[in-house]
């Protein structure tokens, strides 16, 4: 959008006064001194420049005042830009176990809970790259859309800061994934899309939901990262359970298998400590760097102040011109003063004596 097409005024009625700006071409605030012939005045470039500047300043002074009264503004707009980054959909587990430490206890003293650790690290991750678009969703029993895809990183950080509030009980991964996928929305197909799942456990994905999820993943094709905050002692992703190898017995392992079967780039990070979490995040940060088009929103810009400022500047110039004004007639008074003493009879004897 060009600058001119964005330009607008709030009270266009005032603009009918704009022809007044041509007034200085005919009239002047300076005192006009009549002279017998202008030809007696030597041509002077500087004078012509000053004249042009002052005329322009008078036109601008009235013009900008009228414009300022009309309330000029630049309409807001959205600018599509290209930067380096990714569309990141954060999916964060808000189940009750997130409130525990990596050791599986309630945090006490200097220990931090899994939620607090992930909050700290994710906060850093979000701030690092300016053009990332981040959406935040959380899930426990049901998914919660916390923040849609946005480039307002302050909002994202605020959303992330909220994830260490005490969580709820259950873990329903399937619906959470569905919501996180829907956060990507249409548009920007060439952008790199990252789904970052942060959880400390898994749940069974219903067989009936699985095809729907597969379909969604195939459509959106995000890179899937699973930051698995593993509690010490709990089974890892690769560990086969001792008994029957069913999703119910080892939900983490089967979720991992499910993700692997999705056909999208997938990587799981098993993190057993805050340091491991940080490393995983840094890894993601390193991997996901691709050009991304993002929309920058510019707010409406009020130009009245600028117009008043320009008018004030022009009026200042005119004032300076007025103050610098001098007069031939002013010398008339002085001449009279200088003539009078010689006509004064009292001064005659002195002259004769001299």
């Amino acid at each position, binding site marked *: 959008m060009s600058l001119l097409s964005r330009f607008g005024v709030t009270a266009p009625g005032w603009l009918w006064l704009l022809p007044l700006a041509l007034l200085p071409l005919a009239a002047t605030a300076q005192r006009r001194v*009549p002279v*017998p012939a*202008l030809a*007696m005045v030597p041509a*002077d470039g500087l004078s012509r420049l000053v004249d042009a500047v002052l005329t322009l300043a008078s036109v601008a002074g009235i013009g900008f005042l009228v414009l300022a009264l009309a309330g000029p503004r630049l309409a807001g707009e959205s600018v599509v830009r290209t930067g380096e980054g990714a569309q990141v959909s954060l999916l964060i587990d808000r189940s009750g176990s997130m409130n525990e430490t990596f050791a599986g206890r309630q945090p006490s003293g200097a220990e931090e809970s899994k939620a607090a650790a992930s909050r700290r690290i994710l906060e850093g991750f979000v701030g690092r790259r300016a053009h990332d678009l981040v959406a935040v969703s959380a899930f426990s029993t049901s998914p919660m859309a916390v923040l849609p895809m946005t480039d307002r990183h302050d909002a994202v950080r605020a959303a992330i800061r909220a994830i260490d509030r005490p969580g709820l009980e259950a873990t329903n991964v399937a619906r959470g994934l569905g919501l996180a996928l829907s956060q990507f929305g249409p548009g920007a197909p060439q952008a790199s899309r990252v789904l970052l799942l942060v959880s400390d456990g898994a749940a069974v994905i219903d067989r009936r939901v699985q095809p729907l999820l597969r379909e969604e993943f195939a459509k959106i094709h995000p890179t899937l990262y699973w930051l698995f905050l593993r509690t010490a002692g709990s089974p890892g992703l690769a560990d086969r359970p001792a008994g029957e190898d069913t999703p119910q017995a080892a939900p983490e392992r089967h979720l991992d298998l499910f993700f692997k079967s999705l056909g999208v780039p997938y990587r799981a990070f098993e993190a057993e400590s805050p340091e491991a979490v940080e490393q995983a995040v840094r890894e993601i940060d390193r991997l996901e760097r691709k050009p991304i088009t993002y929309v920058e929103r510019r707010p409406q810009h009020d130009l009245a102040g600028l117009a008043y400022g320009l008018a004030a500047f022009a009026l200042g110039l005119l004032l300076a011109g007025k103050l*610098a*004004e001098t007069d031939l007639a002013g010398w*008339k008074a002085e001449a009279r003063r200088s003539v009078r003493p010689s006509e004064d009879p009292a001064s005659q004897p002195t002259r004769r004596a001299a």
Partner: protein
Amino acid sequence: MSTDILYRLRGPAAGPAPGAHRARDTGGLGVFRDQVPFWRHPDARRIDLRATLRDPFEGTVVRRFEQRRALEVWALVDASASMRFRGRGETWALVTELCTALARSATRIGDAFGVMACGARAETVVPASRRRGTAEAVADALAAIEPRGASAAGLAEAGASLAGRRKLVVAISDFRLPGPVLAALFERLQGHDVVPVAVEDGAFDEGLPAFGLIELEDLEGGGRRRVLMRPSLRARWLSREADRREALRRLALRYGRPPYRLADRFDGDDFSRHLLGTAA
């Protein structure tokens, strides 16, 4: 009542009537001029007995005396709008004062005085007259004139109406005229004794401000111009004016008298000095 203005014609006068100025004519009274044989001037009352007796050829010698003649004095007044200027002095008032004083002085010694106002055309506003009331008529006539128009071409035209005997012609103008008009003015008045009176003003002389912004407006409709005065421009301005004055002086001298500078106020004695001093 100002002092009388004294003036003298360059060269002999040739007026219609006896008057105050030296002339070529001879007459019975006045200053002795020369002696001629009786047959050239058969006036028995003026026979110079001594010279007649002294003459070895026994001719009769007659004394001749200068016959003084009256003059016609004309004022050609530039009536273009530029004469409306008011600076330290009021141009038109100065002109009126000068013309009135000249009219009074002229009629007092028996000369006729007339005024022509020259705008785009020359117009006789007061015909040459020796009447006593001429000065008042001149003052009234000039007061009634509102100088206007951009042209003072009438100044050059005026020469045509002033044909005839040699006259004293006082051309009053600011002489900011186009070259051809100026040349034609002097050219056409060649037969007369022309006294150019250049009306100027101290405001454009030493009165020019050294600093400041002035918006100047041409009285003759030549537009307006803003000028940023500063010492260098002032110096250029003054040197230009000096050049113009010098050029006018050279031109005027070629035809007789140098111009008289009438500025700020009218000084009759000064004008008399100029008239007498340049009459040689």
